[in-house]
């Protein structure tokens, strides 16, 4: 299992479009992927779940990956969030 802590760097926060992209990226992989924030623990492959976080700029997410391709999955998704959803 891999755990990563990432910070939302975008002004608009984790809004609909990047949420959809995260889910799309996650669905490519076989590993389980969960995101935790403020007592919420949601499945990263579910769009409603990711949007439920309503993560604003500056908020911190704990990502957990577990499965055969967890390393690549972590690299791509953590990179996408840290990189500001390719919006910066």
């Amino acid at each position, binding site marked *: 299992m891999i755990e990563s802590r990432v910070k939302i760097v975008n002004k608009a926060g984790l809004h609909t479009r990047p949420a959809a992209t995260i889910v799309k990226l996650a669905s490519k992989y076989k590993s389980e992927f969960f995101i*935790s924030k403020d*007592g919420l*623990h949601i499945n990263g492959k579910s769009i409603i779940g990711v949007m439920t976080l309503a993560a604003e700029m500056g908020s911190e997410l704990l990502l957990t990956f577990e499965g055969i391709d967890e390393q690549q999955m972590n690299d791509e998704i953590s990179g996408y969030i840290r990189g500001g959803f390719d919006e910066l």
Partner: protein
Amino acid sequence: MIIIDKNAISRTASIDVKFFYNNAKSRFKLTLHSDETGFSREIKDQNVHRPGLALAGFVELFSYERVQIFGNTEITYLKNLSVEKRLKSLHKIFEFNIPCIILTDGNQPFPEMVDLAIKQHVPLFSSPLLTTKLTYLISDFLDDQFAPRASIHGSFVDVYGVGILFIGKSGVGKSEVALDLIERGHRLVGDDVIILTKKGEGILIGAGTSLVKHFMEIRGLGILDIQKMFGVRAIRQQKRLEVICELEVWSDGSTYTRTGLDETLEKILDVEIPYVKLPIIPGKNITVISEVIALHYLLKHNGYDAAEVFKNRLERAILNKSKENSERGVNYFEHDFE
């Protein structure tokens, strides 16, 4: 088996008086006598306190961090004091960092008490409710606020009044089963992110999140609003969790219960909930099986356990050494050719 992740469990550490007042004023018929300057004070304990002894001067072990309830005892005691002594007595309590004061049973605060409350920024309320009733109501409200909560990924549906939570891997079809059940007249509590709250001992109440409520995603369609689509009959706001149903793609390695004699229980927040694992195979109608799970639960709840009854029939037959067991169920088809 499901695991509630440690990150999924949370507990509110404190609520401020503002939140308490906004949620409680109509429920407990509260009237504010001071101003709102003390509304940022925090309540950290679900119990309330009657400060009789503290008013009399004994402040050792004074549970100041609790909501302070002034009932008839406290008010009568203060009434019998001179204004000077009364102020002195109240001062002792106001020295502590108390969250707020509530007068019960229609008692009104003394003018000097209101002045002191405003000066010290301590919210002062009164309520017409009786002390015992108000104490019970506030404890229940605070108990709920400070109760442990767990967020879980799944779909929660009320099926014939039985709260069934569908869990399983992403994409296994939980939302589709929920949608199918709604179409058949059952009610959706929440989809995707369910917050379970421990209520008392042995009870879990589930609800969707305030953001998502009754929205749902169906793969290939996108986000749907179930309440708009099916109307108010298709939803409910909260439901007791009674059965957990895990959906999984059928695999040779897994074993599934065949007799149902041994009930499997799953522990969430120390509450044991009946747990069923359902394999998904082609041609299997999970919706109908879900309805049967609910009916089975209701029968069991009413004292009828089919597996147990069948077991007893078998035991009796073995005991009687009867040869009729493998015989036809009807002895003679008398002129019945239907």
